[in-house]
């Protein structure tokens, strides 16, 4: 096969990326798939094809609970983050006339602190002698510190929603910024007040941004393991924590791999349902 100069140059330029993707994504995924059909025999792995790992994942209520809880927590994080991010994005897109760039810059400031430190700071805020309890005690709202703020799934939801907010604000901002202002004037001209103009024009036209934001948050959140490990306790543990246990202490890589792939399938299904749901909302707004 002969290639012209441009094609060869293109191939050359694409090669490092392609190799990188093959080595760091395709290969690990392939290995995970392979492992999930093998069996752990003490320290060795038996390479005979088996469905046993998947049977265990679906039969054991513990794993099922963890997967469902992860999806539920991720869905709640997504909902909360989008609800909190939308007004901010709306404000920057419609109300800020000058210095939009500065506002967007401010939105990214939380990223200046590492993810781990941000999660850790929530631990300080929600702890028994943390910021929230101290403040409430000082105000006299409570007599004894509330000890249920930390180490549960709600703490995980709050922490993750904070961590992911900028990721939600940016795509929603872009979709709102793109809306031609004459559509809003047209809606007003055709007799609609601000609330109904928003529901009938602005919101449906920003659905692509909401879908983007939801996917960006939902998919990685299902598999998050730092936050549940730090603020989740046993009540807030998610599937990623169990996968880590299987690859670590429990030393059962095949089961861990099967668990990971089952989670991926569930996430894909849930993400599709999420998009479908948002599309239905878009339709009902017509």
């Amino acid at each position, binding site marked *: 096969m002969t290639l012209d100069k441009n094609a060869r140059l293109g191939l050359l330029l694409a090669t490092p990326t392609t190799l990188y993707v093959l080595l760091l994504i395709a290969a690990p995924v392939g290995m995970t798939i392979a492992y999930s059909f093998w069996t752990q025999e003490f320290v060795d792995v038996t390479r005979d094809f088996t469905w046993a790992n998947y049977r265990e994942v679906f039969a054991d209520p513990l794993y099922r609970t963890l997967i469902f809880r992860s999806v539920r927590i991720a869905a709640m994080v997504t909902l909360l983050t989008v609800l909190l991010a939308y007004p901010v994005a709306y404000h920057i897109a419609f109300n800020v006339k000058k210095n939009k760039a500065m506002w967007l810059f401010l939105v990214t400031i939380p990223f200046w602190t590492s993810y781990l430190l941000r999660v850790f700071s929530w631990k300080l805020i929600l702890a028994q002698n943390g910021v929230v309890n101290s403040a409430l005690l000082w105000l006299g709202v409570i007599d004894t510190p509330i000890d249920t703020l930390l180490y549960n799934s709600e703490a995980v939801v709050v922490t993750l929603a904070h961590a992911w907010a900028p990721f939600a604000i940016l795509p929603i901002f872009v979709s709102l910024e793109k809306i*031609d202002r004459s559509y809003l004037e047209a809606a007003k001209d055709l*007799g609609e007040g601000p609330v109904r103009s928003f529901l009938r024009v602005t919101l449906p036209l920003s659905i692509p941004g909401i879908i983007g934001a939801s996917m960006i948050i939902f998919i990685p959140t299902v598999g998050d393991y730092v936050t549940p490990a730090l603020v989740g306790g046993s009540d807030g543990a998610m599937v990623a924590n169990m996968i880590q246990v299987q690859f670590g202490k429990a030393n059962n890589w095949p089961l861990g791999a099967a668990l990971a792939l089952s989670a991926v399938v569930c996430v894909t299904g849930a993400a599709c349902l999420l998009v479908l749901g948002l599309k239905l909302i*878009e339709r009902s707004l017509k």
Partner: protein
Amino acid sequence: MDHKIAVNIANVSKSFGSFRAVRNVNLQLKEGEFFSLLGPSGCGKSTLLRMIAGFEEPSEGTISIGGLPMAGIDANHRPTNMVFQSYAIFPHLNVEENIIFGLARSGLSRSEKRARAEDMLAKVGLEGLGRRSAHELSGGQRQRVALARALVLEPKVLLLDEPMSALDKKLREQMQMELRALQRSVGITFLMVTHDQHEAMTISDRCGVMFEGKLAQVATPHELYQKPNTKQVADFIGGMNFFDGSIKANGGTRLEVELPRFGQLSVDAHGVSDGIGAAVTIGLRPERVHIGSERPEGADVAVPARVIDRAFYGETIHYYLELEGRTDPLIASVTNFERADHFEIGDAVWSGFRGGAAVALPKK
């Protein structure tokens, strides 16, 4: 025809900071007329339109629609609807959904709304395209949908903001005629903003010409063309030759004017009330200038001239004539008749005109 007032604009001004976009405009639109606001970009015509629609509030003055003052009434509660320059067809809705958008709180049933939409689609020539999605429409179709969407609400006044600017020339001419026919059939007052004087003249019953926020003249297209009030209006509405002269006698409707080198002639006074000896500017349309190799017969005044340039437009030919003692060339537009005389650059010719063809310009 009954001449009730649809829109009354009284002493309206609008300032944006220190910039005065609209200055003390007084204008009355009659019910059922097609009115065009004409002027160069930035003259305040769109601001005036937006004040009528309710998107801007006047800084001074009042706007009444159908006898009701509109101060403090938001755009969504005004009996006006607008065809936007960009058409603003909602991209997430199909044609029919766009058209019935404004009927949401009309109390009509779904089937009644659809019937109205069908009716409007037929009126604007888009039968059967109700299911089309917005991005499948051509420029002309978008304009028709925008018209249907606004007209289905039966506004007292339909406002059109440069509705033809996004269309190519051929389609624009076709849409102008259709718009005129549509306006006649629905009988609603149309107020169109445009910078294209041909467009305004072709479709309007009356036009208002605006410069720098002020309404310079309001008249029928014919009047505007034949009797412009100022040099600025005359220049904006087609080309015009100007002559400076002095008044020899003022008979009220007719003016005896002495033009240097041409001599004395009688022109339409057009409201000029100055007395003998006052300076006056006379306007003469290029097609009223006669040229020929002999002294033109029937011309009240005539002088020799020389052709210095020529522009061929197909149906007409423009000759640029150099006259002794005149800095601006005299422009003569000659219809390209079968037996018309043709002249070359450098030819010596005669140019002349009749007093009845010229008009005095009352204002500076």
